[in-house]
C-alpha cells in the first residue's frame, strides 16, 4: 500500500487479464446528471459490437459505471437514475452538522460533516443497488473514492456497491463523508475527477473517457452554493492537471468523448437525462470511426 497523498490504493482488485489484444476501458468521471451521457455512449458501443473490458467510475460517474457493469438496459438505467437523483436530495439540512459547526463549544465538531441530511440518498441507493455486489458485475468494475484522512485515491472493486457509490459521491461540505470499515471516504473527484490512471493500471490500452467540468454557479446565494462553487473550482483545475498528466505520461490511447450540450445542465436536471443520453450518443458517433480503426475494425 502506498502512502503518499494522491497515490492509488486498492481495497481489493481483480487480476489484469493476460493477452496481447486491445483492452478497452470506459472511464466515467465526475459530472452529476451529465454522466448519463455514458448510457448513450454505451448504446453506440453495444450496437457496434465493441466490448468493454472494464468500467471505471468516479463521483456521479460511479452510478452509471455500476449500471453499465451490471448490464442494466439503457431504458431501465435511465429510469433508475431519474428516481434516484432528484433535487429533493439536498432539500433537508443535516442540523446536527450545522450545530456542530456553529456551536462547537456546546456540540463538539465531528469530521463526519455535511450540510445535507444524507438519509434520503442512502435509502435511494439501497433501493437501486441494495442487493448488488461488485462480484455480480458482468464487466469488471472499479469505483474510486478519496480517503478523508490522507487524500489517497481508493479503488473499490469488491463488496457492497452501495457503500462504494455512497463513498464516491460524498460531495465535500454537502454529503457527509462515508465510513467503510475503519476508513472514512469523501468524493472520488477530490483526488482525480477522471480516474484514467485506474484503467491504465489495470492494463487498458484503449481508454474511452467521459467526464465533465463542474458548472459554476451564476449567483452564490446560499452556503450550499458556496460549497458547490469551491468544489467546482478545485475539481476543474484538478481535472485538467490530471488529464494532461495521463495523456502525456503514458502511451495508452485516450479518447475523450465530449458531448456538446446546447443548454445548461445543472446538478439535478434529471428531466434532461433523455437529452443528455442523446448527446452522449451523438458524441460517441463522432469518435466511432477512429475507435473502430484503432481496434482493427473495418469502417463501413
Amino acid at each position, binding site marked *: 500500500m502506498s502512502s503518499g497523498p494522491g497515490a492509488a490504493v486498492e481495497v481489493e482488485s481483480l487480476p489484469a487479464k493476460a493477452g496481447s489484444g486491445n483492452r478497452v476501458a470506459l472511464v466515467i468521471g465526475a459530472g452529476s446528471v451529465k454522466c448519463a451521457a455514458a448510457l448513450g455512449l454505451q448504446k453506440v458501443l453495444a450496437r457496434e459490437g465493441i466490448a468493454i473490458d472494464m468500467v471505471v467510475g468516479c463521483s456521479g460517474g460511479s452510478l452509471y459505471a455500476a449500471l453499465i457493469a451490471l448490464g442494466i438496459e439503457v431504458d431501465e438505467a435511465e429510469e433508475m437514475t431519474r428516481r434516484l437523483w432528484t433535487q429533493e436530495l439536498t432539500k433537508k439540512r443535516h442540523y446536527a452538522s450545522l450545530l456542530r459547526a456553529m456551536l462547537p463549544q456546546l456540540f463538539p465538531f465531528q469530521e463526519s460533516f455535511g450540510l445535507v441530511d444524507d438519509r434520503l440518498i442512502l435509502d435511494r441507493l439501497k433501493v437501486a443497488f441494495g442487493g448488488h455486489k461488485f462480484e455480480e458485475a458482468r464487466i469488471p468494475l472499479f469505483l474510486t473514492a478519496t480517503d478523508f484522512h490522507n487524500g489517497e485515491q481508493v479503488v473499490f472493486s469488491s463488496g457492497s456497491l452501495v457503500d462504494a457509490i455512497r463513498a464516491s459521491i460524498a460531495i465535500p461540505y454537502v454529503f457527509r463523508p462515508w465510513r467503510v470499515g475503519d476508513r472514512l471516504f469523501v468524493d472520488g473527484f477530490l483526488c482525480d475527477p477522471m480516474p484514467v490512471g485506474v484503467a491504465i493500471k489495470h492494463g487498458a490500452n484503449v481508454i474511452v473517457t467521459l467526464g465533465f*467540468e463542474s458548472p459554476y454557479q451564476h449567483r452564490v446565494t446560499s452556503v450550499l452554493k458556496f460549497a458547490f462553487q469551491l468544489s467546482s473550482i478545485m475539481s476543474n483545475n484538478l*481535472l*485538467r*492537471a490530471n*488529464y*494532461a498528466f*495521463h*495523456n*502525456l505520461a*503514458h502511451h*495508452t*490511447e*485516450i*479518447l*475523450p468523448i*465530449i458531448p456538446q450540450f446546447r443548454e445548461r445542465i445543472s446538478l439535478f436536471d434529471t428531466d434532461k437525462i433523455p437529452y443528455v443520453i442523446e448527446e452522449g450518443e451523438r458524441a460517441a458517433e*463522432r*469518435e466511432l470511426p*477512429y475507435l473502430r*480503426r*484503432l481496434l482493427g475494425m473495418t469502417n463501413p
Partner: protein
Amino acid sequence: MEIAVEKREGATVVSIDGSVDGMSAPQLVAAFREQIGGGNPRLVGNLASVDYTSSAGLRALLETVKDARQHGGDLRLAAVRPEVLRVLELSGFTSILQVFPDVDAAVASFTA
C-alpha cells in the same frame, strides 16, 4: 492525414488535414522535425482541417513544441476547431501553447 508546408516571412506554416491521432501522429512529428532540423523552428500548426485529436496527437504536439523551443523557436496553433480546442483546453494545452484565430495572426505573432 495530409500535410502541406508553406514558408512565410517569419514562420513556417504546417497545414494538417485529417485527424491527429495514434495512427497519424508519427507522420506529423516527422514533418515538424524535418522543419526544425532544417533550421525552421518557428512553426505555425494550421489546424483548420483537423477534426479530432487523441492523446497520441497531444503527445505529438508537446514533443514538437519542446523541440521547437529548444531550437529557439516555437509551435503556435492557428484556426483550431471548437471540438479540438475543447480537448486542448481539457488537457491544459492552451496554457502552454499559444493559439490564434487564424494563420495570419499566428505568423504575425512571430514578428511582433
